[in-house]
């Protein structure tokens, strides 16, 4: 892309060739009215209010691309009359509900109506009856809907559920006279608006992954959160900028707080908002906000007991739902008192990173989700993408839909949501333990074989064979026929029969023997039939390649071999590599803490079981603040150190109090922010200096990025072959969470409260003739659990999974590290 110069209203503006005029204007602080356009999604031309004049021609700023030297005028008398008419049309029959509407002053319809100076109505049409609809977490009021289609667009181009579409409104046609009298674009807009309404594809109610992003982008009060409805006015809230605490995407969001009620002046979080043009939240972030540790006071007795416990303990076990600062406190305590730090999931990730670094020579992977968004060929290996890191799924979907991209998804569990993202995505539902084969396949298909270590190239060559196959081909064949024609003999005047030879071309099917290359890896990975042809189609005109690898690899019995293969891919293919850290701050913990593998005799558990437990979930021996009650930083998948702020107060003791009582000295937890380890890539920036916002051009100005360090590499790049016999072919159980859940913290929020169980696909449930709620015994080599069966409509196939979000179910005990295990399930 080339830098070009254009002029908007006489101002010279630099932008990229091919950038939409609207985005170029916004990036430079020039206002062009626009309703239906969503940054990062495709223009729909529903509103037509973004009309501008470019080189004397009227165009839509949201879909006209900037060209070198373009002269743009944002208003002309004609455009002004169009815009005014468009706003009048939007106001036709719009209910006078602003007084109670949840958009309360954040309404784009109100704003533009005032902006265009609409003070009277010229148009009219008979209204239709449009009752409000309850879609579960979401409420739709079609009477308020202006049919900008932003909800449909975001759901398709960004989220990937494509759960919404338009249905007929059933209204009268617009009076013919208006066609002549109205401005042209306003009429066209009205004509379209008058035909349709929004409806879930699934019929009466919404069947999707419930991200709630449609409610976020809705410019009016048509789509709102059912729980929030009529509880507050937008202006009453104080917005606390924060970082989502639930997964490693670390999305920026704001907690909207106000007093609980007339009676109770304590702050309460009413909802979560996001900068929807630049960041999309999943439902856990949007609805799982009230996971705070409630009603905690300073319990001096418990605190003294905690200090005594720390003096007695030799081990601290913790999870990765803590801030970088807390992780540093734990590391300092370890340095001072020699505690063993136990966090299995972060330790697995850390060893994976180290094994990767030994080949790649860099401390961290090179890619990030921004790179995935920009790619046109995306591969995911070893992650249940939609639940491990919803934003990674959004990034993949966005790349597929916006960049005419294609993708490969390697995972044992068939995911209908992934399949629904695009026609150009292929799922490899390979057997567990075949992840290495998937990595080898990427090397085989994309690596520069000449540059790669010859042992690997030779190993890969071993999977290829030439096979003679019979293919049917259609060929053109010339056939000569004798036809008898009647010709009039001119001399005699009599018709005579004459034989004549004619040559015709006919299509004929012939069988032909051809030699084709057969890739044994395809079959080993259960590739769909005809995949090699599909792949050729996928790869046409592809330029940017991204690979995402996930937690299945970190806990894989051959994790370090997987890591080395990932490093080889990064080195010898065009793929940029992004690793999905398991939990919110797994990457931060891995970079800050030296983790141990063996517990000692007395364990302090922080948000996990121990002889003495510190818990932000309540119910422990000493209460700790949850992540919405703390300030600090979290390190996300993009290797970004993001600040988060306390939305709610916490009156108990924090980890820093314990550390101070034990001899460390720091007034506030965030005093540790500037001390985060430099050698791991952190910067000596203090907490208050960390920014947390997006600019108008979409640039993410949040915290800072970890510096990638150079690491000494191993002398060889050897990788070991995989063993196809290790594949677990049937009776498999997986360790994962259902959509909307990540940890006990998501389940603690009032909208997402649920009990876990054994999750199975609907078909699996039917084939076993189980019913929702049936009790089953789930038994693996390591243990047994008795659970309820729960149907998950968002998976297919025969693999069941066990959740980690429900503290009543100790699923981890059934697994030997690796996320898959052999299982026997008996109905009781």
């Amino acid at each position, binding site marked *: 892309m080339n830098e070009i110069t254009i002029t908007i209203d006489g101002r010279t503006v630099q932008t990229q060739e091919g950038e939409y005029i609207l985005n170029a204007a916004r990036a430079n602080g020039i206002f062009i009215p626009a309703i239906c356009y969503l940054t990062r999604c495709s223009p729909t031309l529903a509103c037509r209010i973004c009309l501008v004049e470019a080189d004397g021609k009227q165009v839509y700023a949201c879909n006209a691309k900037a060209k070198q030297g373009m002269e743009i005028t944002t208003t002309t008398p004609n455009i002004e009359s169009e815009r005014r008419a468009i706003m009048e049309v939007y106001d036709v029959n719009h209910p006078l509900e602003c007084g109670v509407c949840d958009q309360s002053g954040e309404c784009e319809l109100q704003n533009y109506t005032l902006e265009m100076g609409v003070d009277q109505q010229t148009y*009219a049409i008979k209204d239709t009856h449009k009752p409000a609809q309850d879609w579960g977490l979401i409420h739709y009021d079609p009477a308020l809907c202006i049919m900008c289609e932003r909800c449909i667009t975001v759901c398709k181009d960004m989220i990937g559920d494509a759960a919404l579409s338009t249905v007929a409104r059933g209204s009268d046609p617009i009076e013919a006279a208006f066609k002549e009298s109205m401005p042209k674009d306003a009429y066209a807009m009205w004509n379209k608006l008058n035909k349709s309404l929004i409806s879930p594809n699934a019929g009466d109610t919404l069947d999707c992954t419930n991200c709630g992003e449609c409610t976020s982008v809705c410019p009016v009060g048509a789509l709102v959160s059912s729980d929030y409805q*009529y*509880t507050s006015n937008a202006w009453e809230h104080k917005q606390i900028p924060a970082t989502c605490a639930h997964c490693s995407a670390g999305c920026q969001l704001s907690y909207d707080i106000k007093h609980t009620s007339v009676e109770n002046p304590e702050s309460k979080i009413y909802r979560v908002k996001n900068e929807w043009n630049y960041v999309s939240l999943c439902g856990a972030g949007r609805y799982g906000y009230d996971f705070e540790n409630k009603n905690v006071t300073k319990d001096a007795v418990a605190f003294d007991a905690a200090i005594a416990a720390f003096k007695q303990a030799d081990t601290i076990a913790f999870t990765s739902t803590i801030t970088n600062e807390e992780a540093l406190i734990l590391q300092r305590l370890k340095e001072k008192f020699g505690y063993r730090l136990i966090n299995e999931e972060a330790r697995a990730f850390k060893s994976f990173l180290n094994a990767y670094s030994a080949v790649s020579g860099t401390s961290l992977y090179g890619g990030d989700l921004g790179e995935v968004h920009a790619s046109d060929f995306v591969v995911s290996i070893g992650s249940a993408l939609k639940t491990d890191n919803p934003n990674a799924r959004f990034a993949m979907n966005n790349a597929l839909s916006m960049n005419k991209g294609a993708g490969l998804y390697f995972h044992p569990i068939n995911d209908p949501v992934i399949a629904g993202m695009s026609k150009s995505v292929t799922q490899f539902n390979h057997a567990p333990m075949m992840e290495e084969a998937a990595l080898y396949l990427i090397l085989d298909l994309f690596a520069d074989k000449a540059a790669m270590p010859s042992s690997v190239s030779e190993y890969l060559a071993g999977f290829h064979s030439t096979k003679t196959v019979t293919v049917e081909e259609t060929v053109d064949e010339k056939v000569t026929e004798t036809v008898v024609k009647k010709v009039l003999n001119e001399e005699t005047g009599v018709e005579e029969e004459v034989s004549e030879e004619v040559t015709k071309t006919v299509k004929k099917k012939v069988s032909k023997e051809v030699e084709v290359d057969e890739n044994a890896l395809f079959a080993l990975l259960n590739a769909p039939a005809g995949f090699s042809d599909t792949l050729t189609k996928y790869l046409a005109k592809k330029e940017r390649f991204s690979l995402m690898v996930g937690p299945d690899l970190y806990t894989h019995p051959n994790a370090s071999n997987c890591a080395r293969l990932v490093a080889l891919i990064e080195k010898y293919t065009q793929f940029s590599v992004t690793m999905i850290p398991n939990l919110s701050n797994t990457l931060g913990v891995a970079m800050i803490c030296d983790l141990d593998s063996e517990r000692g005799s007395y364990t302090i558990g922080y948000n996990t079981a121990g002889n003495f437990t510190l818990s932000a979930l309540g119910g422990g021996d000493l209460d700790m603040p949850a992540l919405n009650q703390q300030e600090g930083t979290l390190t996300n998948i993009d290797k970004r150190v993001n600040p988060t702020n306390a939305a709610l107060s916490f009156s108990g003791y924090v980890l820093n109090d314990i550390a101070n009582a034990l001899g460390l000295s720091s007034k506030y937890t965030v005093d540790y922010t500037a001390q985060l380890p430099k050698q791991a890539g952190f910067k000596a920036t203090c907490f208050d200096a960390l920014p947390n916002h997006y600019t108008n051009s979409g640039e993410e100005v949040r915290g800072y990025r970890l510096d990638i360090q150079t690491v000494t590499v191993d002398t060889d790049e050897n990788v070991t072959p995989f063993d196809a016999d290790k594949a677990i072919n049937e009776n498999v159980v997986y360790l994962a969470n259902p959509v909307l859940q990540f940890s006990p913290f998501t389940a603690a929020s009032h909208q997402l409260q649920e009990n876990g169980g054994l999750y199975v696909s609907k078909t699996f449930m039917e084939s076993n003739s189980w019913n929702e709620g049936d009790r089953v015994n789930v038994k693996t080599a390591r243990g047994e659990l008795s659970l309820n069966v729960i149907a998950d409509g968002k998976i297919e196939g025969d693999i069941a999974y066990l959740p980690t979000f429900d503290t009543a179910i100790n699923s981890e005990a059934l697994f030997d590290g690796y996320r898959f295990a052999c299982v026997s399930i008996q109905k009781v």
Partner: protein
Amino acid sequence: MHHEEVFTDRNVSEHSAYYYVDIENYPVTGWDKFKQVVKRAAKGELFVGLWVVMREMIKFDIHTVQYPKEKLPIGPRYRAVHKLLRLWESGYERCIGCGLCEKICISDCIRMDTRIDENSRKEVTEYSINLGRCIFCGYCAEVCPELAIVHGGRYENGSEQRAHFVIKDDMLTPLDLLTAGEQSEYPGFGAIIPGSDASVKKTPLAY
């Protein structure tokens, strides 16, 4: 010596009973003050006062108001403790919970709880005004789009504490009083301006 003040352009009649009271100059020097004390003490002015009280008492024709038994009528536009009105016909609460009163209040003393009710309407479950902070400016009544919150005539709001509240129950017209026709429209801030109808532009209806 009485002299009439010349009022210019004020809504007070010509025959107004306003006049300036002649007051002797206050004594300044110590000697003058001493003389005043002696003069007053010797004159028996105290008994004059006592006599007046005695005389009025036995006449049984007192002109003071017997507060709190008796209260002076108060102007309809007086801005005392708020009332929440009901719709005349249906008896529904007028307040729709739009929150404008809460927003405009310069003392930040209004709070309300709202929710979605069974009929999908916004319901105001509680409404409170901290009278200790309220400056009775009338903005809330003026901004209210529903003529729901108005000022009433209840001016007694002495309390033991700086912060004291009226809640929805205190302010809302009880249904029996509504039926008895005891609810009255408020003519003060926020009331409909005479001739409002004429200034409203009507939306064209094609059917």
